[in-house]
């Protein structure tokens, strides 16, 4: 029997807790605390605790065309018909759960080769950057929290307990919620769903030495939070729902779910990289009707879902436990993701798929080489050292 730990980063929210996958005889059997994580110190919420099950049971074993299993060669040829479309007829959507390296390759392919009119991620919300580090939240004297962030991002939220212990105060704005229970004072939205931030809150923020406003990019009150922070001169912690939402945004992917939901003019061809770990909502279900009108829908996914059911071409891809690279958490910390397992036969990593689709035009010898290219081309990453990313503390994009 074999049993060992492989340290990696949680595939769920943008907090970026480190965890150990327990590997036994070739499979991931569980999760053990990774006490050395600078973010979680070994603690995990229910999602992280079950990261071993993030890879669902319905792995796609072989590429399919028109719903029928086929070989890679045929499937790739079929997928390359995407080239028959361009501009606004063609959209490339990635997943903000994939690594920075995978997303960088996908971005290059979408821009340089497909010249797609729309390049985004299928998440809602906005792109915003905070200017405070997670552990500095402990040192704030006032935190104004929106949208039940303490529950949605437990290991970000717990820093506020340290803050409270140091004498800091939690103010809360939003619906009745878990965070409301933890708060020292709260403004609750009224029955019509209207929220007014009290002047008292604003004054407390203005008078505080070290105030911070905490909100999520998909929060109902993201805009209000942003304005309040600005007008009260507070720092911001902007939280991302997905493990690499910040990374995908830095690479240039725009959250496009809301636009796609609203539009009548659906692009004729689409390439979608889907990654929906277990316990997360299947965002594609409500898009089903819209997407079934697409002439050519190419889906790259590790697990069968409502999306792969309607795709013209499905390319099976490695899962999070089989990919190496990095994620960027909400604070801009780039952390290592380890390949704990070797991919099942017949599965390729996102970067390998891009290499094949691009006829080796976008192809790298290893993850370090992709990272070097990211560093050279994506401004936010220009000072990040690959060596530092490999270490337990990770490395920060742009110094605050």
């Amino acid at each position: 029997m074999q049993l060992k730990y492989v340290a990696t980063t949680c595939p769920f929210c943008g907090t970026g807790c480190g965890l150990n996958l327990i590997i036994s005889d070739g499979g991931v059997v569980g999760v053990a605390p990774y006490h050395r994580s600078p973010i979680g110190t070994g603690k995990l919420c229910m999602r992280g605790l079950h990261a071993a099950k993030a890879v669902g049971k319905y792995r796609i074993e072989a590429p399919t065309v028109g719903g029928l299993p086929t070989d890679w060669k045929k499937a790739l040829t079929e997928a390359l018909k995407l080239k028959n479309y361009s501009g606004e007829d063609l959209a490339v959507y990635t997943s903000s759960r994939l690594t920075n390296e995978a997303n960088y390759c996908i971005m290059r392919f979408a821009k340089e080769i497909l010249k797609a009119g729309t390049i985004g991620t299928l998440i809602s919300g906005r792109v915003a950057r905070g200017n405070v580090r997670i552990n500095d939240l402990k040192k704030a004297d006032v935190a104004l929290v929106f949208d039940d962030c303490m529950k949605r991002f437990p290991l970000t939220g717990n820093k506020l307990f340290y803050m409270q212990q140091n004498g800091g105060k939690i103010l809360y704005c939003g619906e009745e919620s878990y965070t409301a229970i933890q708060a020292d004072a709260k403004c609750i939205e009224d029955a019509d769903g209207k929220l007014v931030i009290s002047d008292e809150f604003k004054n407390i923020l203005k008078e505080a030495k070290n105030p911070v406003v905490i909100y999520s990019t998909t929060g109902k009150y993201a805009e209000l939070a942003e304005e309040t922070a600005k007008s009260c001169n507070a720092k911001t912690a902007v939280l991302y729902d997905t493990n690499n939402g910040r990374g995908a945004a830095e690479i240039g992917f725009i959250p496009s779910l809301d636009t796609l939901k609203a539009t009548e003019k659906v692009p004729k061809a689409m390439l979608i990289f889907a990654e929906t770990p277990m316990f997360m909502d299947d965002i594609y279900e409500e898009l089903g009707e819209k997407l079934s009108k697409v002439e050519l829908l190419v889906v790259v996914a590790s697990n069968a879902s409502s999306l792969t059911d309607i795709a013209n071409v499905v390319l099976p891809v490695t899962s999070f436990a089989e990919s190496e690279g990095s994620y960027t958490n909400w604070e801009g910390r780039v952390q290592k993701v380890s390949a704990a397992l070797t991919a099942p036969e017949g599965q390729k990593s996102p970067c390998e798929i891009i290499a094949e689709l691009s006829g080796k035009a976008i192809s790298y010898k290893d993850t370090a080489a992709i990272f070097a290219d990211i560093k050279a081309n994506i401004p936010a990453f220009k000072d990040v050292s690959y060596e530092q990313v490999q270490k337990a503390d990770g490395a920060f994009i742009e110094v605050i």
Partner: protein
Amino acid sequence: MSAKGDMFYAWTTSSDIKGECGGAVTSFLQHALANKMVDAVLAVRRGADLYDAKLELITDPAEIPKAAGSLHCGTLLSAKMVKKYMNGANDLKIAVPVKGCDAMAFYELAKRTQINLDNVILIGLNCGGTVSPITARDMIADKYEVDPDSVFKEEIDKGQFIIDYNDADGKHQHKGIAIDKLEEGPEGYGRRMNCQRCKCKIPRQADLACGNWGVFGEKSGKATFVEVCSEKGAALLDSAVKAHAVEVCAPEPKGLEIRGKVETAMLKLGEKNRTRQFAGLGEGRERLQKMMKLTSRCIGCRACIENCPICYCVECSTAKPHLIDQNRVPPDFMFHLIRFAHIADSCINCGQCQELCPMDIPNALFMHAQQVELEKMFGHKPGYTMELPVLAFAEEANERARLHATGSDMIYENVFGEEK
């Protein structure tokens, strides 16, 4: 031939083993594996850096010297891993180096038939306490004013937490600060809170109890103090001596005395810390209110249950919808009451439920405070013998009658010591 109760100085004969104090533990593990006394060794290995400890199952004897003897930042608990991922050692013989809390956890899981101790050799390691990695790093930066990445060795000795590091000029430096100094501050530095309260310093529940306390005279720094605690331990020691894997000699009388003094001092400190920490909880109603307030941070993630060496029920009461509304966050206080009622008699103060609680609820402090009271009342001491827990003996009818007769609704006597 050695026997239970015998004590030795022991040291390795292998030049591959660079043990700090004789390397006997590494030799015992390697010997047990090489001679097929066990199929594997569940060892602690250094992960990302000095601060990171991870478990690994080793089957190749040549790999054993690479495992760390002790990492003071290794706060993990091995017993639950054996239960969860190694089928409770039912079909695999293993040797495991254990701290006091690990040893106690092995016993508690064994008495619940979750681990087969017949297949396990426990090599006890004296433990003065462990420091969580990130706490250690913050403390080194703040109190020692040293870059945590420049530290290459840490130890707990003579009441101090000591680091060896390279300064800016690359010169080797050595710095120690008294542990009680570190722990008295408001920052929460020093050992984990449960380690501060721990009174299992020399784990004699193990088959051999090993450490450097009491190694005196010419063997100082070159041998491990070994106390034989079971027949299994005696057999391993004898076999290792016979194969010349280790050499032994009788301990110095002065060494025995020193070891006794170190242990007594540690136990006293543990008792002092219990008094201080439990007093911080207040008494009676105040304590209950404090517990209710802090547990209202709970998100119901069940990390406390998953990691507790006492919890093993397949159907946990806290997961039953008729007892606890599974959708409410924070869950009702009953969630915590169920845990208290079910396991407080057996809590071994391993600290896992606190260290791994995402919402930083001092669960272990709450549970341990109750265990100590229950021990006073029922005389049951968890973690040291195979004696079954208090609740295993409770007769429901009798308990109800007794409860009725007290005229109060307290299951036990007034645990909170509040005036009636």
